[in-house]
Every structure is written in structure tokens, then in C-alpha cells.
């Protein structure tokens, strides 16, 4: 029966009206008899009460949250890669506690079985020896990593964090469609689904006893920390980098859990131990949650052309000095053909049937199974035996028997006959549906539930809900995010109140301050460069504004001053004839690029401000014209830059990372000021140069107050180079650098005694003193050029000390 029974649901007819589950397919909201399943009545009633208009406002609020938080994922298509906003399906999927405990009991058993299988494949090889698992599925499997065979994981276990893709059969039974053991993603997105959905429906979720997600992350964090052996060592997250499709999530989880986010180049192996290069020297890493596929982890022993790995990683594993979550080689458990053997393996290893079955799978390398698939081709999905993709995400290589034309069908039958070992058949499943909100109405859509499991000391902990992938259409093949699916929050609802877990320490928890000085060198370098690029953009925009204002006043005559400035800007890559020069855009892009590589250390607000700035500049570049228009544009850009700087200055904790950002800004500002003074404070500088300098140095008012109306060369030089109270003067930058340099960490294993002053500290002191005892009249262009050069040398010294 597919038509909703109106008699039973009359009281909540609103959203339910017209909701028609598909024939022969289970629906999560409405049962076979047309009655609402537990919990849905309350949800629908509340939604109806809110009404379509307010609901639209609330859903918009959820979307706005995701936009503000910068939640994106990357898609790859013919146009290259693009960032897409996270597609939230606003109606949560409800699962009651009883269903949920059936699922988690089944998955606990399954996770333990998977652990035993992978330990056997890379250990004793009993499953193959006893004839349970065909050897060629292992030996010829690209996920079987020969170099790690025989290596026992340091912590004793291969699997610590897994995900399972589940679907529900028409008879109501849950099926496992696939196991994710390589580097499962989505846990962070699940958290964001929850936060966003709660933004829209907080009153409803509060009244429905929805299980919280934080407890799961707390368990996982504790379990990662329990793998640390050396008290000096740390746990960290390893990401392939900002170009990865789920990089946002890596940064997000790193921030949420308080772990360092590292890339392969941050790591090195010394004396058999994995170490992170930090600004304080090499620090040991005992646990890595790797978000990159195993093959890329070590170019020396695995994929030799991997640029994102760490040479020697496998050697460290061989010495059992580091735990990987999950162990290298665990990806073999994702092999599609393995699903065909799980029932027999469960019997062989655990002497029982699987409580939660997999989608029916037949490996066509066996005669009986091949015949079964060929005889029932219309009810089969057929695909590569060693594929690690889910059948419905693999539209290129996996085909539906029922959709083949006669020619393709006979070709497939022939392939099955000749190359059965390379193929598996799987029952063409009809996934159950859940409601989505479309134009004020509910409509059924197929979905896949992703369940996350983390190992803790006594077993497995499950994230209660959080993540379902829902199709935009009724086509089950379009559930994959890459192909335009959407994501829904999943509410596991309880009859009674639920535990209020949070990641914040409880009152009686011991206070623990993080070990300081663990800023990865790469992060420090990116922070420094971000500071430099932002400052470079600001300096450039100030000059451009001053120039365009003059151009606007006298558009038809070429002022000598503007010629001067054109010459000054040219070697900096800035073309004064472009209203929004490419050189300015490049500085902002450079800042974005640096910031993008350290998103875990960056507040969402800061990121948004920078993103907004970049968008503005690129938009301006198409429409703004020289003169007055450009003057106004520069004012807007400068205001946005000030907004960003304010965020950084007022909100960023003064940890080591902030110092590198600050050093970058001060160095750049010092160089710029010295250079522009060398050009415009010459005896023979063009008319109006001094006024322009004051404008560039944002010091018109100060100068007027302190000196006289007339801009004298000496007084301008004094104010912009030597006045220690002027935040734009050269000496002010050197003062700040002196302070920051003194607070930088001392590198362990570096040259020189630990107590002696670092070379760059001596250099800045020398430079500061030289300038402090100078008279403004002594500052010739040559002296100023030398100052600019010496400040640049400070940046090199920092780089040699901390980033090399």
C-alpha cells in the first residue's frame, strides 16, 4: 500500500498531504500500512505549526550558518575543481533508539570481524590457507600493500575509525552496502549538519530527546590519546592538503578535537620515529589520524611518485613507533568482492552468522556463483571485483543488468564467462526513502545512512546519527555528493532525556594546558607570508588611492608625481594604468592561498573576512575605472583590510602563530615605508611628494598637529621613519619586531648556546639602534634603501632559522 492512510493521520494533514511513498520501497516516515512511524508525528506536527513561511526563514538560517562557517566540499568535473556549498537537506532523518541499537549491535560485531580479517590478511594468512578467502583477491589487489605485510600495528589494532554505508531493504531489514576503512570522511560534516539543522529546528530537537554527537568525538579523542606511548609525543591529523575534496573537514575536526593538522612535508622520520618539524625543532608524533590513502603515505616504499607522503613512514611502522588510524593496508577491507565472503568468514572466525547482513554479493570467480549472476542478470548490479567504491557511486564501471541493451548484455555475459574472477554481481537493491522538503511539500527520496564507529578501550563507540546522503531525485545512483546528492542530519531519538555530552572539560576534570611550542614550521611560514601579503596589499592600496585621487583632480594632464609613482610601482608588479592592478589582486590571492593552507588555525570569521575581500577585489577588477571610481574602490578595499586586521589583532590568541603573522606584517610595512620614503622624500622629488607620503602613511592629521601646516621634508621623514609613536613609522616596525623576535621559541638542536641571543634578534637590535640615533636629515635615499634591504634580510634569517 503506497497511498498514505488519511484516516490515521488526519490531525497532521498539512505537510503529509500528498506524500506518496514509492510502491515496493520502504519509507522511513510512513510504514507499509500508511501510518507514521514513531517520532515523525511529533516532527511533522511541529513543522506544520511553524508554517511554510517561517519554515523558509528557518531553513535559510541553517543555510546561512553553513555559508558563514565556510562549510564546503570540493567537486571535480570537466571544469576542474570547484568549491561547493554544503547541500543540506533540512528535514532530519529519524531513527528510533530501538532500531539504532539493532544497527550498532550488528556493526560492533562487523567491526570486530573486519579487524580480525585485516589482521589475518597481513599476518598469519589463515583465511586463505583454510580455503575461506581466494588468494588472488588478496595478492592481485592494489589495496594489498606488500611492504606492510607482516608488520603488527604499534597499538595492536589495525582499525580505530570506520564508517559503514547502510541502506534499508523493502522488508525493513538494514543492509550494509559497504565498509569504509581506508580514511572515512564525513564525521565533521555530520557535526555541521547537526549544528545547521539545530539552527533551524532547535525547539523541536530539544523536545524530541535527540542523542548528542559530542560524546562520540570525546571517546574518539580519548582513544587516540590512549595510543600515545611517549608522554612528550602528540597525536595529529594528517591531510593530503587544501586541494583534497574534504579538506574543510580535516581543518574543522582538527580545530574541534584540538589536534595539529599536518601535511606530509611537516613530517620527517628520524631514528625510526615520526617527527613533526615545528618552530621549536623536531617533536615526536605517536598517533596519526591519516586522511590520505595509504599508497600515498611513503614514496620510498609505496607509491614512488607521491609528493604528499613522508619518506620512511613505513620504516617507522616496521619499528612500531607510530600508530596510524587506520593502519596502512586497512583499505583492502573495502574491496567489493570481500562482501561475498563475509558470511563464510564470520562462520569460520566467529562461528556465527552476521547479525547485520551485507547487500547480497557473488564473486564471479566461482563457478556456482558466476552461474547464479548470469542466470539472474536482470536483478543484478555487476562491477569490478576489486573496486572499493559503492556500487551506486560507480556509474562508470558498474552496470545494472536490467538496463542493458541486448548487445551490451551479451558482451557482459561473455565477460562474466571469460573473466569472472574480475567481476562481482550484487543484488540490485531498492533503497528505502526518507522525506525531503521541496517547494513547501515533502517528497520521498532514496538515502544511504553513514554510520561512524570509533574504537575505545572496551569496544566500539558509535556516532548516534548525524549523516545521511539523500538523492535530489529518485535515482539511487545520484546519492553520491560528487554527483549532486544532499546531506541530512540523522536524529536518533530516545524515549527519555539524553546525556548532554560536550567536548568542554567538566568541572572536576583536571586542568590541562597544551604543551607549547608545537607550531608546525609550515604553518608558521604560511602565517608569516599571509601577514606580508595582507600588508603588501594594504600598502599598495594606499598608494593607489593617493594616485587615483590626484588623477581624478587632473585627469587630462600627466602630473610628474604620477609619473614618479608609475615608475615606483612598476618593479613591484603593479601597473598604475589599471584601476585595480593585477599586482594588488596577486597580493590578496597570495594571502588567501597562505590562509587556505592553515585553515585549522584560522577562525571562520577571519576566513570569511578574507574571502569577502578577495571576492570584492576580483569583482572590482572588472568594473572599476581609473580616477574617482578607483579612489572609492580603494577606500572600500582598505576598509575591508582594516576589518580583517582588526579581527586578527583583537581576537587572535597571542600564541606563536600570531607572532609569525605579526612579524610578516611588520617586516613588510617596514620595507614598504623605507622604500617609498627613499623615492618620495628625495630633495628633488616631484611636487606634492610630501603630501602624498603623509597620505600613504596615514599621517596627515598627526603631521598637522605636531608640526605645521606646511609639509617639510625633514618633519615628514621624522614622522614616518623615526617617530616611535607613529604606528606606520619604520622605527615602530623595528620596535615591534624586537619584541616579537625576543618571544620566538628557541629551536632545539639548533646551533649556538640556548641562552645566547639568536642572530636575528641581534640584527634587529643593531638596525633599531642605528635608526634610533639617526637624525631625519641624515636619511638619504641610499640609507633608506639599505634599511629596506636590512629589514628584508631579517625575513631571510627567520626563514633560515625556522622554516628550513
Amino acid at each position: 500500500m503506497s497511498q498514505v492512510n488519511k484516516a490515521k493521520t488526519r490531525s497532521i494533514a498539512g505537510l503529509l498531504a500528498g506524500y506518496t511513498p514509492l510502491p515496493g520501497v520502504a519509507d522511513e516516515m510512513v510504514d507499509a500500512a500508511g501510518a507514521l512511524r514513531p517520532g515523525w508525528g511529533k516532527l511533522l506536527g511541529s513543522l506544520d505549526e511553524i508554517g511554510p513561511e517561517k519554515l523558509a526563514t528557518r531553513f535559510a538560517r541553517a543555510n546561512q550558518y553553513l555559508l558563514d562557517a565556510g562549510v564546503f566540499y570540493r567537486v571535480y568535473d570537466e571544469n576542474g575543481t570547484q568549491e561547493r556549498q554544503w547541500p543540506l537537506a533540512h528535514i532530519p532523518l529519524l531513527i528510533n533508539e530501538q532500531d539504532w541499537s539493532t544497527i550498532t549491535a550488528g556493526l560492533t560485531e562487523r567491526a570486530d570481524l573486519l579487524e580480525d580479517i585485516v589482521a589475518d590478511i597481513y599476518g598469519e594468512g589463515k583465511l586463505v590457507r583454510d580455503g575461506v578467502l581466494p588468494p588472488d583477491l588478496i595478492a592481485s589487489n592494489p589495496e594489498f600493500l606488500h611492504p606492510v605485510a607482516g608488520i603488527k600495528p604499534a597499538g595492536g589494532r589495525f582499525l580505530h575509525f570506520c564508517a559503514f554505508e547502510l541502506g534499508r531493504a523493502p522488508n525493513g531489514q538494514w543492509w550494509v552496502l559497504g565498509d569504509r576503512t581506508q580514511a572515512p570522511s564525513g564525521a565533521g560534516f555530520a557535526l555541521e549538519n547537526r549544528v545547521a539543522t539545530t539552527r533551524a529546528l532547535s525547539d523541536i530537537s530539544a523536545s524530541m530527546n535527540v542523542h548528542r554527537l559530542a560524546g562520540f568525538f570525546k571517546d574518539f579523542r580519548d582513544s587516540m590519546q590512549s595510543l600515545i606511548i611517549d608522554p612528550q609525543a602528540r597525536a595529529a591529523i594528517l591531510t593530503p592538503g587544501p586541494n583534497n575534496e574534504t579538506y574543510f573537514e580535516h581543518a574543522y575536526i582538527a580545530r574541534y578535537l584540538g589536534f595539529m593538522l599536518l601535511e606530509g612535508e611537516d613530517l620527517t622520520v628520524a631514528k625510526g620515529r615520526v617527527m613533526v618539524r615545528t618552530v621549536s625543532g623536531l617533536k615526536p608524533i605517536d598517533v596519526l589520524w591519516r586522511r590520505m590513502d595509504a599508497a600515498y603515505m611513503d614514496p620510498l616504499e609505496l607509491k614512488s611518485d607521491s609528493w604528499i607522503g613522508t619518506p620512511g613512514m613505513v620504516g617507522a611502522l616496521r619499528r612500531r613507533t607510530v600508530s596510524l588510524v587506520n593502519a596502512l593496508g586497512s583499505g583492502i577491507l573495502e574491496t567489493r568482492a570481500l562482501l561475498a565472503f563475509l558470511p563464510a568468514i564470520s562462520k569460520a572466525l566467529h562461528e556465527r552468522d552476521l547479525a547485520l547482513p551485507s547487500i547480497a554479493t557473488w564473486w564471479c570467480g566461482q563457478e556456482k556463483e558466476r552461474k547464479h549472476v548470469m542466470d539472474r542478470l536482470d536483478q543484478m548490479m555487476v562491477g569490478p571485483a576489486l573496486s572499493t567504491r559503492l556500487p551506486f557511486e560507480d556509474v562508470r564501471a558498474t552496470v545494472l543488468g536490467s538496463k542493458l541493451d541486448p548487445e551490451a548484455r551479451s558482451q557482459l555475459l561473455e565477460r562474466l564467462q571469460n573473466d569472472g574472477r574480475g567481476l562481482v554481481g550484487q543484488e540490485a537493491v531498492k533503497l528505502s526513502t526518507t522525506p525531503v522538503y521541496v517547494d513547501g511539500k515533502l517528497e520521498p527520496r532514496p538515502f544511504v545512512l553513514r554510520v561512524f564507529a570509533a574504537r575505545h578501550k572496551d569496544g566500539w563507540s558509535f556516532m548516534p546519527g548525524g549523516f545521511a546522503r539523500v538523492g535530489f531525485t529518485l535515482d539511487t545512483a545520484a546519492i553520491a555528493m560528487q554527483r549532486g546528492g544532499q546531506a541530512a542530519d540523522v536524529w536518533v531519538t530516545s524515549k527519555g532525556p539524553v546525556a548532554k555530552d560536550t567536548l568542554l572539560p567538566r568541572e572536576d576534570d583536571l586542568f590541562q594546558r597544551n604543551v607549547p611550542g608545537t607550531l608546525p614550521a609550515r604553518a608558521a611560514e604560511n602565517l608569516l607570508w599571509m601577514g606580508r601579503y595582507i600588508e603588501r596589499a594594504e600598502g599598495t592600496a594606499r598608494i593607489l588611492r593617493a594616485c587615483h585621487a590626484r588623477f581624478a583632480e587632473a585627469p587630462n594632464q600627466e602630473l610628474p608625481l604620477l609619473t614618479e609613482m608609475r615608475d615606483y610601482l612598476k618593479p613591484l608588479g603593479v601597473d598604475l594604468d589599471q584601476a585595480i592592478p593585477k599586482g594588488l589582486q596577486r597580493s590578496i590571492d597570495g594571502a588567501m592561498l597562505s590562509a587556505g593552507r592553515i585553515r585549522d588555525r584560522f577562525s571562520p570569521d577571519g576566513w570569511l573576512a578574507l574571502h569577502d575581500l578577495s571576492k570584492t577585489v576580483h569583482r572590482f577588477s572588472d568594473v572599476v575605472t581609473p580616477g574617482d571610481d578607483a579612489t572609492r574602490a580603494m577606500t572600500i578595499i582598505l576598509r575591508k583590510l582594516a576589518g580583517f586586521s582588526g579581527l586578527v589583532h583583537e581576537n587572535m590568541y597571542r600564541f606563536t602563530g600570531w607572532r609569525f603573522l605579526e612579524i610578516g606584517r611588520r617586516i613588510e610595512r617596514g620595507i614598504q615605508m623605507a622604500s617609498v620614503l627613499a623615492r618620495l622624500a628625495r630633495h628633488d622629488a616631484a611636487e606634492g611628494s610630501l603630501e602624498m607620503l603623509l597620505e600613504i602613511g596615514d599621517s596627515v592629521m598627526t603631521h598637522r598637529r605636531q608640526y605645521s601646516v606646511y609639509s617639510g621634508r625633514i618633519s615628514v621623514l621624522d614622522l614616518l621613519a623615526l617617530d616611535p609613536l607613529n604606528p606606520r613609522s619604520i622605527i615602530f616596525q623595528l620596535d615591534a619586531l624586537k619584541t616579537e623576535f625576543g618571544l620566538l621559541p628557541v629551536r632545539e638542536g639548533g646551533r649556538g648556546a640556548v641562552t645566547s641571543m639568536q642572530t636575528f634578534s641581534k640584527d634587529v637590535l643593531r638596525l633599531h639602534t642605528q635608526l634610533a640615533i639617526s637624525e631625519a636629515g641624515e636619511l638619504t635615499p641610499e640609507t633608506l634603501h639599505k634599511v629596506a634591504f636590512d629589514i628584508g634580510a631579517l625575513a631571510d634569517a627567520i626563514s633560515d632559522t625556522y622554516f628550513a
Partner: protein
Amino acid sequence: MLYNIRLHLHYDYARSAAAGRHHVRVMPQTLPGVQRVIASSLSFEPASAERSEFMDFFSNSVTSIVYRNPHETLDVTMTARVNVTRPPLMFDVSPDIAGLKKEIRSVWSIAADAPHHFLTSSKHAAIDPDITAYAALSLANTKTVTEAVNDLNRRIYSDFKYDGDATDVRTNARQAFDLKAGVCQDFSHVMIAGLRGLGIPAGYVSGFLRTIPAPGKVRLEGADAMHAWVRAWCGREAGWLEFDPTNNMAASNDHITIGCGRDYADVSPIVGVLKTSGSQEGKQSVDVIPLE
């Protein structure tokens, strides 16, 4: 046959290498029934910051070395005294190709010597329809698998030209097949790809070959070379048999084994620095001196 073997590898870096990490596979090993290593040593110049040894999946002995300071050259010197006593060739006990396929399936093992690891494409020796078609002619002329392997060994020897300038260490089976030329590494890769195409498990053996000077000539110092040949799994009875397509012979007491793998990539003498070096003869010198 008793030998003193000396291998010297020399690398010049165009630009000073700031640091390096290498895996070195050059030490002959004791292989029960085939060869016995009486003594061996391996040294590096400059001395490495770290050094350790391990056995890889295929039971090859690997020396891992790490450099942290800039260096312009690397010299690897291996010396060993090895006694090679291969058993004489038995009469042919191998099945035909259909029988072999059944026998492969009856081996329920993923141990390093199991045939299953050697049946599919690898980096340098990918299964290729043209190479398979070429190899298939050897099946047509023969009855047993061993005969077929022997025949392919002979045909590669006669159809391919030995040419040290035609290829380099990165050349794969297909490229060498198109050139119909190359060195021992290429001959071996073509043969491995061909055998795998036919469903015969095949692997790569790296080692040394004693060269016998022409009559009346003296053996030249350092004139020998590292060598490579092929092993093929010819059924449960026959097991792994070794053939040398570069010399049209079965592996003999003149062949001293370092190790084996799926292809060159599994047993290259040194990984980590060879990426940009030239041809495989590059800067190596080998002396294989018989003591009997």
C-alpha cells in the same frame, strides 16, 4: 662454484643533495639448495647518519640509510664470498597451460613465494595484448609450461638486440618490446609481461653473472655487470624455475642471486636517488671472481 664478488656503485649529484634516504638491495643471500653466503659486507661513503637492515616482503635483505648533511656523491661498496651450487636440471615435470591454471588455483597461500603475487601487471611489466600475442606463439609450439617458458626465453634472445643505449632504468616492458632492444632488465620485463599474459606466474631476479673472458684474454677489472633474469612458476612439482633471456640459458652456477620481486621496482639496487640518473650501466663496476 665459489666466488668473490665486489660491487661498487657511484652516484654524482649535479647539485649537492641536502639529505637523503635510500633503500639498498645489493646483498646476495643464502638460498637453501641454491647458494650460500660465506661472508659479506656493505659500506657507504660518506658514512650515513642512520643505517638499519630489514627483510622485505619477498625476503630480500634491505639496508636503509639516511643522510642529513649535504653530500655531492654517494659510493656503495659490497663485497661477498658466495658458493653457488644449483641442482642439475630435472626432467620436465610441468603440466600444460590448462593444467597450470588449475594448479595455481589449488595453491591456497599468499606467502611471498605463492604464484598469485606474480600473475597481474606490475609497474614495469604490465600485461599487454601485443606482448601476450607474441608470447602465445611459444605456447603453440610446445606441450608443457616449462617448454613454453624455455621457448619464449630463446625467442626473446634471438628477436631482441642487446643494446645498452636503447633503454634506461625506467623503460617498461611495452617500450622495450616496441624497440626490440635493451639490456637484461628489458629482456626480463618483456618475458615477464608475456608469461603473465599467458597466465604463467613470472617474477624478476636480480643478481650477478660470471662472465668468462674470450680465449686468450684476461678478465678485466670491474668489467662484469649487475644482471637480471626471470623466474617462472611451472606448477606444483616443478615450482619456480629460472631462465636468462639475455643469454638464452637456464640460470646456472654462473648466476649469483641478490633477490627477487615482481619486477625491477621491487629489487632495484638502490631507491631514493636513481630517479634522475642515466642508463642502468651508469656508474657501477662489478667483479665476479671465481675462486676454483
